[in-house]
């Protein structure tokens, strides 16, 4: 996996995959050349439901707010 040859192969594959679906926000000056990444909600836990994932994250975020626990 560490060699340039393998890297180049991956690059080619990644480019081939790019056209299929918009996976990433692309920086203006350059086009992301790497492997496409999945969405954090595309799994068994969230079954592709982005809204549910966002709600989970927002709820989880409140664990960083001790005021909610102390006064709740």
């Amino acid at each position: 996996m560490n060699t340039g040859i393998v890297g180049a192969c991956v690059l080619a594959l990644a480019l081939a995959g790019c056209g299929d679906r918009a996976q990433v926000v692309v920086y203006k000056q350059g086009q992301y050349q790497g492997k496409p990444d999945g969405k954090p909600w595309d799994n068994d836990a969230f079954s592709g439901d982005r809204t549910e994932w966002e709600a989970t994250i927002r709820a989880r975020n409140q664990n960083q707010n001790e005021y909610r626990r102390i006064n709740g």
Partner: protein
Amino acid sequence: MARMKFICDTERCIECNGCVTACKNEHEVPWGVNRRRVVTINDGVPGERSLSVACMHCSDAPCMAVCPVDCFYRTDEGVVLHDKNLCIGCGYCFYACPFGAPQFPQAGAFGLRGKMDKCTFCAGGPEENGSEAEFRKYGRNRLAEGKLPLCAEVCSTKALLGGDADVLADIYRQRVMTRGKGADIWGWSTAYGKPEAPAQPPAAGGKS
């Protein structure tokens, strides 16, 4: 739409380095690589303040702008990630980053020779989410598990906040309103004018 951010409340950060070891623990980060670290100013004198720093997942990220092989991407949630298969380890991003976030591991670390490594916001990288390959190259993917970065989740004083920027803003705003002032740190008075006089005048030798 969720937009992921870190903020560190300097009124609370006590430089305990919990965020640093949490990161090491979660991602098996090797010795010498510091995806996160704590910076202290005025160390040992009144006015000492600490701040936990990692990749800030910039909205207009300089690393992305300078990367010669365009290995960076930003996810829909605003997390800046990169593809280690593509990265050539040139270090341009290290020059560009104002926070010193990019790290260049010793050969072999993370299974990839000399590739740049940095904070992923616990979002892994461009391998299948939760896969062995993703863990080996980028570390654990907590976001895909519905969790947030471990550094922020375990912060000893809940100084380091990480997650949806809107939620963080609410949490931080409540603190600022409760204590009646913002951060006693550089930049605040420049941006917002002098803070209100503290309730009690500082003693000689007290905080600045």
